[in-house]
């Protein structure tokens, strides 16, 4: 646990949570600094929602504990609830109420009024004001997220927990949402966000990579990317799939994955320079006839630049995530193991949210 001059807004200590046979959190520990924009990044079923519910005082851990703003999430839940803001992953506002009615309702639950809190939410509410009388259920995805953020902010929380706020919204709205979070952070708010999207890591000060109820890493996005422990090569090829298959047969391949327009390759050898690896990979692919492979019409069109190009590149957060995921989900594994984390359906069955009634799916 990090203990520095900074104060910690959140301290999570060895938290375990099980739902029946499935382990949602298998001993999670981390600290989030005051004023930080902190991200939990991992796929569906990694345990993000369970952890957020515990931190928002909605769920009790089986073992371990957590403190938020210095208060224990179990013993001090009633005093904490007025100090934290929580935005659940599923849209949980009243779809039949208008934008303004939803805001007034959440203000009144916390014993305040929209007028009194107007300045706090003004930067976001301004973007919603034109839709004041529209039913929340009739808003676009991006607007719904902004309204949910307003409702989570209306009681002036000192810390915000946002569970997958950008899932399912388009790229423009996602960017706007992250811009809003940066503004809130600049105003001094601590914000804890979860996302399944690795490319959002760079919007956070620090991130925790989470998978199967365990943290794989906690650090700045930069440091996590730099911790990738092998030379990484990008292979550009007009015949991506053929190249991928060829590299699967290459004796020195450690990993090879499709990665956007390229393939990311690491070598099993640790005593060979990256330049030599790049040369040898290129030579191998040429002997396999990759540049001349007939790839059908799509190969003709997609050949931007030279047909085959191999270069050394810096790793991304996503490369590190894959490297640390562990062998149980290795790419060529054919062994089906039982899920060790709750599936969507078990999560919904076991969870209830006492502060926000869910009026629609």
């Amino acid at each position, binding site marked *: 646990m990090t203990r520095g001059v900074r104060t910690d807004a959140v301290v999570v200590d060895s938290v375990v949570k099980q739902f029946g046979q499935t382990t949602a959190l298998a001993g999670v520990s981390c600290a989030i600094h005051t004023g930080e924009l902190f991200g939990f990044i*991992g*796929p*569906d*079923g*990694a345990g993000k929602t369970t952890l957020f519910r515990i931190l928002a005082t909605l769920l009790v851990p089986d073992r371990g504990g957590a403190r938020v703003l210095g208060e224990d999430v179990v013993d001090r839940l009633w005093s904490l609830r007025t100090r934290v803001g929580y935005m659940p992953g599923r849209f949980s506002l009243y779809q039949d109420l208008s934008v303004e009615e939803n805001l007034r309702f959440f203000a009144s639950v916390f014993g305040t009024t929209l007028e009194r809190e107007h300045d706090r939410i003004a930067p976001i509410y301004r973007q919603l004001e*034109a*839709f004041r009388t*529209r039913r929340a259920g009739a808003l*676009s*995805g*991006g*607007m719904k997220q902004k309204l949910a953020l307003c409702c989570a902010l209306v009681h002036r929380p000192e810390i915000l927990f946002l569970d997958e706020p950008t*899932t*399912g*919204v*388009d*790229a*423009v*709205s*996602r*960017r706007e949402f992250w811009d809003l979070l940066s503004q809130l952070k600049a105003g001094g708010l601590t914000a804890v966000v979860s996302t*399944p*999207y*690795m*490319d959002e890591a760079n919007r956070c000060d620090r991130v925790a990579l989470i*998978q199967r109820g365990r943290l794989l890493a906690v650090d700045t996005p930069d440091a996590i990317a730099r911790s990738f422990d092998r030379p990484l090569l990008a292979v550009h090829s007009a015949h*991506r*799939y*053929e190249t*991928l298959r060829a590299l699967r047969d290459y004796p020195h391949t450690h990993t090879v*994955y*499709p*990665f*956007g*327009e390229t393939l990311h390759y690491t070598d099993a050898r640790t005593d060979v320079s990256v330049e030599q690896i790049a040369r040898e990979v290129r030579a191998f692919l040429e002997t396999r006839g990759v540049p001349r492979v007939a*790839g*059908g*019409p*799509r190969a003709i*069109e*997609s050949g*931007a*630049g030279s047909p085959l190009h191999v270069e050394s590149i810096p790793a991304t957060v*996503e490369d590190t*995530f*894959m490297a640390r*995921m562990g062998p149980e*989900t*290795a*790419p060529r*594994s*054919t*062994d*089906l*193991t*039982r*899920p060790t984390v709750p*599936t*969507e*359906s078990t999560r919904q069955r076991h969870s209830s949210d006492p502060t926000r009634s869910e009026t629609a799916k």
Partner: protein
Amino acid sequence: MTRALEAEGVAIIARDLTRRFGTFTACDRISFDVRAGEVFGFLGANGAGKTTAIRMLTGLLLPTSGQATVAGHDVYTESEAIKRHIGYMSQRFSLYEDLTVTENVRLYGGIYDLDNRQIRDRTAAMLSRLGLTRAARDLVRDIPLGWRQKLAFSVALLHEPRIVFLDEPTSGVDPITRRQFWELIYEAASSGTTVFVTTHYMDEAEYCDRISIMVAGRIGAIGTPSELKQQFGAHSIDDVFVRLARPVQESPRP
């Protein structure tokens, strides 16, 4: 004109395809081709007209004007033939969670008029390829999300459609499973199946051979991911998208 294009292996042809709802034009004279065996990404902001375009291309909605053929069939007159020759997989809904793996496959095989022998043979081959043979009698809800999505994709290909439509196929899965999923997509494409992908996630778009971006009912840009990045002087498709879509602000509807 369209006959000649089909002969050259074009899976989808749209020419000035338009759909109006009252005075609102959801799709405004969109034109594009998708080649057989291509992985084509179809992007656009919420409300840009993507869903309307897809409903027309899958035979669910008649256009107001313009032309389109999908797998060689006309969207005005042959919508039933289109439905038989396409596959569809959505992240939100694909398989019945209360049915077993095998029951799901049988159900889809029946819907697409496969006979019992075809269903049996293709199920066995599919499960063995996916490494799911031992889970054949498990309820779909009990298998991990990543496997469910790979299974859903394979089920969408069960009737050997010429074109498969995928709606945000990899959202929420872990990064390794996601890449396994893309390998299944590339494998299908290399055997000639056309893959039409819609997604909100721009890094997913970079896996496609070509992408189009809809803006306010029109095709705002179309090309390979590297062509579009070059054209807009952007580092990522995300940047291209935001530059294209940013000027369009949501306006209050009545």
